[in-house]
């Protein structure tokens, strides 16, 4: 079991996001909204170009957590809010902070707050609970 303490932080960089990745995500997730890969459609929607699926960025956040927590832990809960858009070419820097640790029936539940930013612009923020077995 990795050691962890309240206030500990961890990071993961993901990107640059590519249009190919958005097409792969559309196929794998079944979300075929054209704002994610069809430039004229996205422009007509007033978005100034294609934008990444918010859920792709949340997928990066899941990886931030599981990478840090190690293979025996699992995500008990994760929630996120999409603050601004991620576009092809962007690299997202994700950062997690441990906010609480509670023992539950021999296991530990570790609470984490996380954010993701493209340069100085926040794109996602959220919270999670990781379950570590005894």
């Amino acid at each position: 079991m990795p050691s962890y303490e309240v206030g500990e932080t961890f990071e993961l960089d993901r990107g640059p996001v590519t249009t190919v990745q958005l097409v792969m995500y559309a196929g794998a997730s079944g979300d075929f909204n054209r704002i994610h890969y069809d430039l004229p459609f996205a422009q007509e929607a007033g978005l100034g170009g294609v934008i990444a699926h918010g859920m792709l960025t949340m997928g990066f956040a899941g990886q931030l957590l599981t990478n840090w927590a190690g293979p025996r832990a699992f995500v008990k809960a994760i929630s996120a809010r999409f603050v601004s858009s991620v576009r092809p070419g962007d690299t997202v820097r994700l950062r997690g902070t441990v906010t609480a640790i509670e023992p539950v029936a021999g296991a530990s539940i570790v609470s984490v707050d996380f954010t993701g930013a493209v340069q100085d612009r926040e794109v996602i923020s959220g919270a999670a609970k990781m379950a570590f077995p005894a």
Partner: protein
Amino acid sequence: MTLSGRDSQATTEIDRSLVGSASEPFVVEVEKGAIRRFAEAIGDPDPRYRDRTAAQAAGFPDIIAPPTFPVTFRSPEEPVWTRYLDRRRILAGGQSFEYVRPIRCGERLVCRVHFVAVEEKSGRSGRMEFLHQEIRGATEGGEPVFVHRRTTVYRAARVEKRQ
């Protein structure tokens, strides 16, 4: 139907009379290839999403799915409360997933989509509606596995059309 196709009779506004409804239950078979393709799409090399031996070495009975995997669980027919909405006006607002345990390869999950609420808010870019849905998944024996809550932002229709 295709995602861009719409019944010309239908309104593209949210029908509030449908709040509180739920879809028919549908069964999702959690397939190894679907988990692997999803992990590849998010660019996560975690071996627990691909290799049973690695998953078992970590204490799980089989390959597990990434935490955001339930986004792939779609009812065979899109629920009527989102079916006619204009895709150009839809943005993801927020999502959450809660687990009793990770989803496993090979299991069959009985899922239902619930239309929980609609809220109206005014933002920088005008009026927006927030549509709250919940997808609950359980084993065929009725043991709950996950709850996926999603908020969809529905932007107001554009007044002028740029060409």
